[in-house]
C-alpha cells in the first residue's frame, strides 16, 4: 500500500494539484482491495459538501469570485471525499479529493483536485510525521478551508484568507507534529518543509522551498495560534512581458532601463508569512480574530501585506448569528516606482512618446497592486441537523477588483454579496 502510495505521489505532477478521476478511482479501489489484509474498520470513507448560492448587487461586469448580479450556484459549491486507511499500528494514509465550483487558477471549476495525500507515522501518542501533500498552516482554519461545517461563516473571511495566498495554500513535503502540556496549557507544535507550484490569476508561482512552524496554545475556552512560514519564490506573468521587453529595448538609451526590467522579476525571493489567531468561547459567545502579515523583499517585483478580521458569534439554540469586520492592505515595494521616476531624469518625458506610454502604463499596473479592502459581514447559521447547517449571509465589501480575484479594475469599489450556503458532512 505504501509503495503504491509513494509511487502515486511521485507520479503526480507537482505543477498541477489535479489528478484524474481515474486515479481517484484506482486509489479507492486499491484502498478497498487492501482491506483483505486488515479488519474492515481500517478503511474509513467520509465526505463533505457545501451547496452555495449567491449574487452581487452590482449591475456591471465586476465579480466577486464567480458571483455577478444574477443568482448562481458555482462559487461556494464544494464537494469532497476522503479515504483514511490504517495500514498498521503506526502507519496510516489519507487521501482527500475536492471538487470546487470556483478556483483562482481559473481552470479547475469542479475538476477533482487532490488536496491531501499523505502517509503518517505515529512515533508516540503525541508525535507523528507526515509525508505527502498537505495544507500549509497559514491560518487558524487552513486545515478546513473547504469544510463550511467547521466555521460559522459562508466562507473564511476574505480579508485574511486572501486569494493572493491561494497558490501556497498547500504544499508537497513533510511535517512533524507533537503536543505537550505546559502547566494547564496544552501546546500543539508543528514544523514543516516542502515545495509547491501554482497559479494566481495570470501569475505562475513557484515556491521552491517552504519552511515553517506553528504553535497552538489551548486552555479550556481559549486557543491562541502563531505560525510563521518562509518561502523562496519565483513568480512570472505573461502580462508583464510587454513591459520588461519594452524596458530591455530602451536599455540602449541607458542602463537604468535594464534595472527597471529586472525589477519586474521575482526570482528566488524570500517571503515571510506570519499569522496570529485566537478563538475565545465565553459562555454562548465566541470571538475569533486573526491577523496575518506578508513580508516580501525590498527589491524586485514583490509586496508586503497585512490583513485581519474580528468575528463575534453567539450560539442561541440551533442558531448562530454572527458579525465580522475585516481589513486588508497590500503594499507593493517601491523599487519599480523609484526607478521609473529616476529614469525621467535620464530620458525626460516628452522626448520619446513610446517610452512615456510604457512608464505611464507601468506605474498604473504597479499602483493596482497597492490596494486595500474592507469587509463587513452579517449572517446567521442554523444547525438544522446533526451533520448539516444552512447559512444566510450579507457581506458588504469595499475593495478593488484585484483583491476579489477579478482582473477588471473598477473605480466603484462597493459590493454587497448575498449568499446562502448549505453545509453537510457525511
Amino acid at each position, binding site marked *: 500500500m505504501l509503495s503504491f502510495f509513494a509511487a502515486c505521489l511521485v507520479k503526480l505532477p507537482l505543477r498541477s494539484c489535479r489528478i484524474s478521476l481515474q486515479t481517484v478511482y484506482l486509489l479507492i479501489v486499491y484502498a478497498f482491495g487492501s482491506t483483505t489484509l486488515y479488519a474492515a*474498520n481500517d478503511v*474509513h470513507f*467520509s465526505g*463533505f459538501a457545501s451547496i452555495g448560492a449567491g449574487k452581487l448587487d452590482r449591475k456591471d461586469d465586476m465579480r466577486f469570485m464567480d458571483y455577478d448580479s444574477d443568482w448562481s450556484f458555482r462559487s461556494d459549491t464544494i464537494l*469532497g471525499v*476522503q479515504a*483514511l486507511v*490504517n495500514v498498521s*499500528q*503506526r502507519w*496510516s494514509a*489519507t487521501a*482527500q479529493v475536492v471538487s470546487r465550483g470556483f478556483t483562482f487558477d481559473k481552470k479547475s471549476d469542479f475538476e477533482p483536485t487532490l488536496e*491531501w495525500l*499523505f502517509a*503518517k507515522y*505515529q512515533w*508516540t*501518542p*503525541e508525535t*507523528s510525521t*507526515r509525508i505527502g501533500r*498537505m*495544507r500549509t498552516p497559514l491560518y487558524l*482554519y487552513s*486545515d*478546513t478551508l*473547504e*469544510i463550511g*461545517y*467547521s*466555521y460559522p461563516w459562508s466562507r473564511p473571511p476574505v480579508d485574511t484568507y486572501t486569494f493572493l495566498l491561494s497558490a501556497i495554500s498547500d504544499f508537497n513535503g513533510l511535517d512533524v507534529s507533537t*503536543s505537550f*502540556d505546559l502547566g494547564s496549557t*496544552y501546546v500543539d507544535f508543528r514544523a514543516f518543509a516542502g515545495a509547491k507550484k501554482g497559479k494566481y490569476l495570470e501569475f505562475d508561482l513557484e515556491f521552491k522551498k517552504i519552511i515553517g512552524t506553528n504553535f497552538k496554545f489551548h486552555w*479550556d475556552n481559549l486557543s491562541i495560534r502563531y505560525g510563521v512560514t518562509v518561502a523562496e519564490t519565483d513568480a512570472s506573468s505573461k502580462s508583464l512581458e510587454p513591459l520588461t521587453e519594452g524596458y530591455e529595448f530602451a536599455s540602449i538609451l541607458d542602463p537604468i532601463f535594464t534595472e527597471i526590467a529586472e525589477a519586474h522579476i521575482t526570482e528566488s525571493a524570500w517571503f515571510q508569512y506570519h499569522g496570529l489567531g485566537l478563538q475565545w*468561547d465565553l459562555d454562548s459567545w465566541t470571538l475569533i480574530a486573526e491577523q496575518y502579515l506578508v513580508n516580501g523583499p525590498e527589491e524586485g517585483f514583490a509586496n508586503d501585506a497585512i490583513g485581519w478580521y474580528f468575528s463575534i458569534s453567539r*450560539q442561541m439554540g440551533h442558531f*448562530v448569528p454572527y458579525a465580522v469586520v475585516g481589513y486588508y492592505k497590500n503594499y507593493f515595494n517601491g523599487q519599480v516606482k523609484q526607478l521609473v521616476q529616476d529614469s525621467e531624469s535620464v530620458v525626460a518625458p516628452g522626448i520619446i512618446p513610446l517610452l512615456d506610454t510604457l512608464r505611464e502604463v507601468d506605474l498604473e499596473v504597479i499602483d493596482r497592486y497597492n490596494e486595500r479592502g474592507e469587509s463587513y459581514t452579517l449572517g446567521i447559521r442554523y*444547525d438544522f441537523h*446533526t451533520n448539516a447547517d444552512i447559512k444566510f449571509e450579507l457581506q458588504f465589501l469595499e475593495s478593488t477588483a484585484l483583491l476579489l480575484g477579478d482582473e477588471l479594475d473598477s473605480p466603484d469599489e462597493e459590493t454587497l454579496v448575498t449568499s446562502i450556503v448549505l453545509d453537510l*458532512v457525511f
Partner: protein
Amino acid sequence: MTILKFFSTIKCNRNKVGVLAAILSACSYVSLAHAELAVVVHPSNPVTTFSQREISKLYLGRLHLFPGTSQNIILIDQQESQPSYQEFYRDLVKIRFEKLKRYRAAYLFSGRGNLPIQLSSDEKVKEYVSRHKDAIGYIDASLVDASVKSIYQFPQE
C-alpha cells in the same frame, strides 16, 4: 443549571444523618440525572488508570496511542441523545456539544484521524470494549464486570 452543578458537587452519601431533607431530595434527583460513569478498556490493556485530562485528550483525538504503550486506540462513543453522552462531554471532556461537532468535522477532514464509533447503549459499548483489545468507552459504572477494566470513575469519590 448552576444549582444542579452545585448539588452535584455535594457528596450524596445517604448513610450520613443530619443532612437537610431538601438537599437529600436534590441529591437523589442529581444522582438520577448524573449516573456514575466508568471509563472502560479491554482487560488486557496495560493501562491501569487515567487522569481526567488524559481522557479529555483521548476524546479530543489528541493522543493517538495509549500512553506508555504502542497500542492503537479505538474510541467508542455513545449517541448524542443519551444522558451518558451529555454528562461525559459536559463534565469530563469539558466541551460544548456544538463546538464538539465542529471540532470533530475539522479533525476528520484535516486527516488527523478517525472519529469515535458511536454505539446506541451502555451494554453495546461494554460488549464492544470486551471484544476489542484497542477499544475504550464509557458506560454506567453499575455495569462494570470482569469483561472490561475500569480505569476512571466519574464523578470521583
